[in-house]
């Protein structure tokens, strides 16, 4: 019964993706600037016939609804078209870059959870203590600090001054790294290459912290406030009245229930982690989707933009689906319906 529900949700992503496809298609065509003009630059050494040939090749001479039809038809077959500029299939361009983005998002998520869970819990248990005040004002700072700025500060401190961590990229040269899946940490493990494993993990540290800091701040604040509520609840008093030790009261009875609203926020943040990191990718020279799509937007590389946005939407929907499954697991009142 449970798996049918999940299947239903997976199927429900199809119309969502369809809608997303139509919206991106029109929005990028509304932005001023013609792809062929931009591609040819200001050189002016190109004949009108050449331009027409390119427009024809990209189907840009056809009416919009025909272009849309081509796009949807191909997308349904899993073909997202050819990049105008890079002259490669969009799917393989994405497949090349996606692992880097996901690896960074996972790193940032882990960092934010490892930081936010204890801080949220302890701040609630010791409400108004100096620890609570300190962590909540730090969290406020974390939310309001621009990502590139934090990134640059961290690079200056840990890479340039202390030389503990690498400045840029995903892995150092000379580790004998062999790529398999595109997830460098995983690949290093698969090939048993510990030098590469160490290097890829070290490269992840600063970008993960930079990307994860505001997320950690949001999660910690939400968790703290829902912990404050559950710690005041009658069932926590019941647990104490049974003789449950205080640490278990907090972890088993209060945290378990406080995770329910927190999980929803974590889900939204996962979407942000996957989508909103082009600035941080640029600061850390991280070869992810973010940098690629920004370039594609400047180039008016329609197929590449469309494809990347579709992938963003898909991962976002999937992240939310996973959150919903977790949510039902944590909250039996929903599970039963």
């Amino acid at each position: 019964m449970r798996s049918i529900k999940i299947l239903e949700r997976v199927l429900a992503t199809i119309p969502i993706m369809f809608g997303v496809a139509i919206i991106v298609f029109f929005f990028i065509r509304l932005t001023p600037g013609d792809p062929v003009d931009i591609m040819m630059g200001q050189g002016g050494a190109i004949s009108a016939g050449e331009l027409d040939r390119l427009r024809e090749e990209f189907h840009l001479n056809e009416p919009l609804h025909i272009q849309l039809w081509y796009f949807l038809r191909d997308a349904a077959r899993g073909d997202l078209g050819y990049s105008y500029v890079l002259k490669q299939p969009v799917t393989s361009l994405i497949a090349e870059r996606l692992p880097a983005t996901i690896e960074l998002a996972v790193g940032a998520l882990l960092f934010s959870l490892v930081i936010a869970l204890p801080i949220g819990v302890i701040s609630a248990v010791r409400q108004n203590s100096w620890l609570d005040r300190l962590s909540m004002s730090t969290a406020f700072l974390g939310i309001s600090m621009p990502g590139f700025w934090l990134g640059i500060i961290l690079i200056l401190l840990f890479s340039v001054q202390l030389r503990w961590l690498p400045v840029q990229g995903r892995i150092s040269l000379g580790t004998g790294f062999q790529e398999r899946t595109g997830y460098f940490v995983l690949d290093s493990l698969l090939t048993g290459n510990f030098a590469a494993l160490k290097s890829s993990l070290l490269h992840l540290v600063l970008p993960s912290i930079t990307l994860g800091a505001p997320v950690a701040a949001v999660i910690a604040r939400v968790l703290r406030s829902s912990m404050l509520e559950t710690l005041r609840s009658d069932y926590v008093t019941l647990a104490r009245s049974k003789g449950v030790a205080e640490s278990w009261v907090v972890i088993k009875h209060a945290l378990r229930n406080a995770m329910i609203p927190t999980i929803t926020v974590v889900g939204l943040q996962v979407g942000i982690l996957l989508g909103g990191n082009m600035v941080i990718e640029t600061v850390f020279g991280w070869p992810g989707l973010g940098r690629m799509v920004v370039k594609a937007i400047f180039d008016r590389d329609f197929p590449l933009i469309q494809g990347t946005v579709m992938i963003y939407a898909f991962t976002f929907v999937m992240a939310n689906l996973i959150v919903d499954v977790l949510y039902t697991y944590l909250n039996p009142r929903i599970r039963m319906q």
Partner: protein
Amino acid sequence: MESGKPLLEVRNLNSVFPSNGKIVRAVSDVSFALAEGQILGVVGESGCGKSTLLLSLLRLIRYPGRVESGEMLFREKNIIELSDREMRDLRGKEISMIFQDPLSTLNPAFTVGEQIRESLRLHNIVSSNKLPWPFDGLRRAQEKERVLQIMNEVGIPSPMDRYASYPHQFSGGMQQRTLIAIALACSPALLLADEPTTALDVTIQAQILNLMKRINEDRGTAIILVTHDLGLASEFCDRIAVMYAGRFVEQGTVDEIVENPQHPYTQGLLNCRPRIGERDQTIRPIPGNVPSLANLPNGCAFAPRCSYVKEVCETGPVPMFETDPGHLNRCLITSEYRRQPDWDWGVVVGRERA
């Protein structure tokens, strides 16, 4: 009752909640004794400090509330002086509590069976074999067996099927039975029942009370029953304490309290109660309002509403008078009147209330 020491003896207990620079005196100068197997009813209006009294006994008043002073001797050991560890061993095993609102008291995230089992596990009731999960299969099975017995005992039908239910799937009556099952899991010597039937309809109320009575008789569990219903308390209890604004104002056996109420507040409560089969059915509510616990008068807290009030009532704290053996009354006027009915009442320069 019998010879020997009482199970629980409370002396001059004061519990307070500091709030906004003021101090809410939720429990003031409460003293009583409870023998093994005895049932004490604590009767009073909403907000008079009944729940706070029970929570004080388990040291569970929510911060910043605290027990300010007094002694709570359980089996001659002062609960206030116990270490956290000793306190945890006491809670649920020796003294357990049934809370006021069953739905909000059960944890929505765990099955009812698991919530009952947790008590057994905590106090090593079924087995003290301490192998950790996942090597505790045998112990877990034994505990589950015991939980099913308890569920059956408190009248939860088909426990097997209900073990894995969540609290929200239960009716109010079943939730209350679950709370009772949790409280009884470790066969405590003392059960604190905080308005266990207020949230339930009348037939279920009677069933729950019968259940508690049976537990009291079969297991000799002493009970403190908190209620705002003097009628219910007089059917169920051995002794009754009437509480007003954080203080016990009258204490005695059920018969004494019902037949021979002395404190004007108790008399008022009895008048408020419609008595079936009596001709004069006029209900006379007590005039006025309950004073704020943050701002109690120096003298008798009931004085502003009392029809017997004299000036002396408002001059200072009123002690408990033992007017008859075992019958305590915190009222200057009626206690004095009982001692010498032919006293010249004009002597007290009265400020009679209009």
